[in-house]
C-alpha cells in the first residue's frame, strides 16, 4: 500500500444519488441485486400450482423422479453457465457429453479397461474437448458460437464413428460407470448418487464464483473484456480455463448420464444444447455475460423439470410442454433486458 503522505481528508463530497422510489423501480433494483429471486418465485409458484392441479405431483416418488430427470441437464447447464457468464455460448455441450459417455463405455467394454481407468480417461477426453473450444476461442479468436457450432458437428460425427451407432448396455459395463444411477432412500425419497454429485458440483462452483479471484475474473471478463484486460486480468487465461472446466463438467455429466439411462447411447443428447441454455437463461444468467450465477441455473433446471413433469401429470400433451417452456424463456430474457436497464 502506498499511502505515504498523511493529509487531512478533504470534506466528504456529495456523490450521493437521489432515487425515485416507485414500486416498479424498487422491484427492478431488488431483482438487479438478487437475480435469483425471480426464478425462485417462478419455481415456487409452479410447484404450488402443479400440486393443486394434481395430488400426485407433490409426492416423494414424483419429486425424486423430477430431480433424477433434471440431474444431467443441471450438470451440463453448470458448465454452460460458466461460459455464458463470459459472454460466450457453447453449442457443443450435448456432443461433448454424449461422446464422453460413449468413450467411457467403449473403453470399458471394447478395450476391456477397468471401470476407474475408463472413467478417468473419459473425463480427460471430455476436458480436452472443452480445452479445444477454449483454444479456438482464445488463440484463433473465433466467436464462441462459431467455434462450438463446428466442434458440435465434429464431436457428433466422431461419436457415430466410435460407437458405430450402437447403444452399449449398462449391464455390460463395469459397475462404476453406472453407479451414478444407484439410489439411496431417504424417507420415501430416492436420491441418486448422480444427483448428489450434481449438488456437490453446484456447491463447489457457487463458492468458486463468489469467493475466489478466479470467479471475480470470470464476471469481469464477461462484463467487459477490454476493461478487464486493462485492469490487469489475463482474460485469455480466464476464458481458456472456463471452457476447459466446462468440458470436465460435461464429462461428469456423461458419467451421470450413463447411470440415468443404464446405458451409453449415441443417439441421445440432441436436446441437451438448448435445454442447458434454457436452464441457464431461466435461472437469470444474462446471455450478454457478467450477470447471474450457478444458483439460478440450478433453479432454472428445476423449473424446466417441474414444468415438464407437472404439465404431464396435469394431462397436457407433450407438444404443448415445449410451447410452455419456450414462453418461459422469452419472458425470462425480456425480464433480463428490463433488469439490465437499471441506471441511476
Amino acid at each position, binding site marked *: 500500500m*502506498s499511502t505515504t503522505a498523511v493529509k487531512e481528508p478533504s470534506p466528504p463530497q456529495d456523490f450521493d444519488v437521489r432515487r425515485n422510489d416507485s414500486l416498479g423501480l424498487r422491484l427492478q433494483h431488488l431483482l438487479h441485486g438478487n437475480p435469483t429471486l425471480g426464478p425462485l418465485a417462478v419455481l415456487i409458484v409452479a410447484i404450488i400450482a402443479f400440486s393443486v392441479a394434481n395430488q400426485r405431483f407433490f409426492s416423494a416418488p414424483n419429486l425424486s423422479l423430477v430431480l433424477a430427470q433434471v440431474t444431467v441437464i443441471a450438470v451440463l447447464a453448470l458448465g454452460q453457465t460458466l461460459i455464458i457468464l463470459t459472454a460466450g455460448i457453447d453449442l457443443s455441450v450435448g456432443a461433448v457429453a454424449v461422446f464422453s459417455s460413449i468413450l467411457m463405455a467403449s473403453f470399458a467394454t471394447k478395450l476391456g479397461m477397468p471401470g476407474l481407468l475408463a472413467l478417468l480417461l473419459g473425463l480427460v477426453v471430455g476436458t480436452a474437448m472443452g480445452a479445444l473450444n477454449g483454444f479456438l476461442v482464445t488463440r484463433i479468436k473465433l466467436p464462441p458460437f462459431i467455434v462450438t457450432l463446428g466442434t458440435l458437428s465434429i464431436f457428433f460425427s466422431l461419436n457415430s464413428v466410435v460407437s458405430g451407432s450402437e447403444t452399449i448396455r449398462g449391464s455390460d459395463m463395469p459397475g462404476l460407470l453406472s453407479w451414478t444411477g444407484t439410489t439411496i432412500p431417504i424417507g420415501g425419497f430416492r436420491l441418486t448418487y448422480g444427483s448428489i454429485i450434481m449438488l456437490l458440483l453446484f456447491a463447489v462452483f457457487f463458492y468458486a464464483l463468489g469467493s475466489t479471484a478466479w470467479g*471475480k475474473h470470470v464476471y469481469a471478463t464477461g*462484463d467487459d473484456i477490454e476493461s478487464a484486460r*486493462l*485492469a490487469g486480468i489475463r482474460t485469455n487465461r480466464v476464458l481458456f480455463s472456463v471452457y476447459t472446466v466446462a468440458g470436465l463438467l460435461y464429462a461428469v455429466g456423461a458419467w451421470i448420464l450413463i447411470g440415468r439411462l443404464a446405458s451409453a447411447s449415441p443417439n441421445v443428447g440432441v436436446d441437451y444444447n438448448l435445454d442447458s441454455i434454457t436452464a441457464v437463461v431461466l435461472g437469470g444468467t444474462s446471455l450478454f455475460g457478467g450477470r447471474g450465477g450457478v444458483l439460478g441455473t440450478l433453479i432454472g433446471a428445476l423449473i424446466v423439470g417441474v414444468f415438464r413433469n407437472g404439465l404431464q401429470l396435469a394431462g397436457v400433451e407433450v407438444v404443448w410442454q415445449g410451447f410452455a417452456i419456450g414462453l418461459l424463456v422469452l419472458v425470462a430474457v425480456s425480464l433480463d433486458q428490463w433488469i439490465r436497464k437499471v441506471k441511476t
Partner: protein
Amino acid sequence: MTTPVLEARGLTKRYGRVTAIESGDLELYPGEILAVIGDNGAGKSSLIKALSGAVVPDSGEIYLDGERVNFRNPMDARAAGIETVYQTLAVAPGLDIADNLFLGREERKPGVLGSVFRMLDKAHMRTEAKRHMNELGVATLQNIGQAVESLSGGQRQAVAVARSAAFGSKVVILDEPTAALGVKEGNRVLQLIRDVRDRGLPVILISHNMPHVFEVADRIHIQRLGRRATVITPQSHSMSEAVAIMTGAAEPPPPVA
C-alpha cells in the same frame, strides 16, 4: 535541478506509414500535475500509451526516477508503480466497489483457506476499499458493496481514480477523466485529482477541456504533430494562446522549466 519522476526521451511510434509520435519527449516532476494537451492526432494518446505500457515504442527511452525502464505491457508499468485510469475506466460494472478496487490484485485469506481454497479476504478488502475512498474524500458512498453500474459517472470516475491512487506508488495517469461528466461532477473529479497530487503522487492529466486543464495543472505540455511543441504554465499563457500553439496558429515559445 530535481530528477523527473518520469521522463521520456525521443520516443517514436509508427503505425505503418503513419507516424504517431516523432521523437516524443516528456518530463514529469515530483508533486506536480502535468497536463498534456494537443489536437486530435497530435500523438498524445500514443505518448501516454507508451508511458503506461499499452504500446511499445519503436525507439526512444523511458526513465522512471532516473532509471531506464522497458514496459512490454500495462502490467509491467503497473508493477513499476505507474497507474493509468483509461477513458473507459476499466471497471467491471457488475462487480461492487470493493471488487473493482482490487480487480486483478485480489487478496486471499491467510492460512489454508487462502492457499488451498483460494478464499478471498472480502472483509479486509472492503475495509481497505472504504479507507481508500475516505482518504480521497469520497465518503458518502454508503455501501462499498454497491455494484459500480449503479453509480453515476462521477462516482465511477472516483472509484477508478481511487484505485489508481491506492496502488500507484510513482505516477498516476488520467486519460480524459472529466470528458463524460457534467459541470458539478467534473469539478469534484478535479478536486480528486488535486487530492491525489497532495498525497504526494504526481499526475499526468490528458484532457481536451481547457478550463479544467488551466484550473488544476501546474505545467501544460503541448503536443503537436507528433512532438512536444512546448511546455507552458497556466500563469505564463492564456487559454487562447495555448489553443493557438496547439493548432499551429502561433509559434511555440521556448519551454518553461
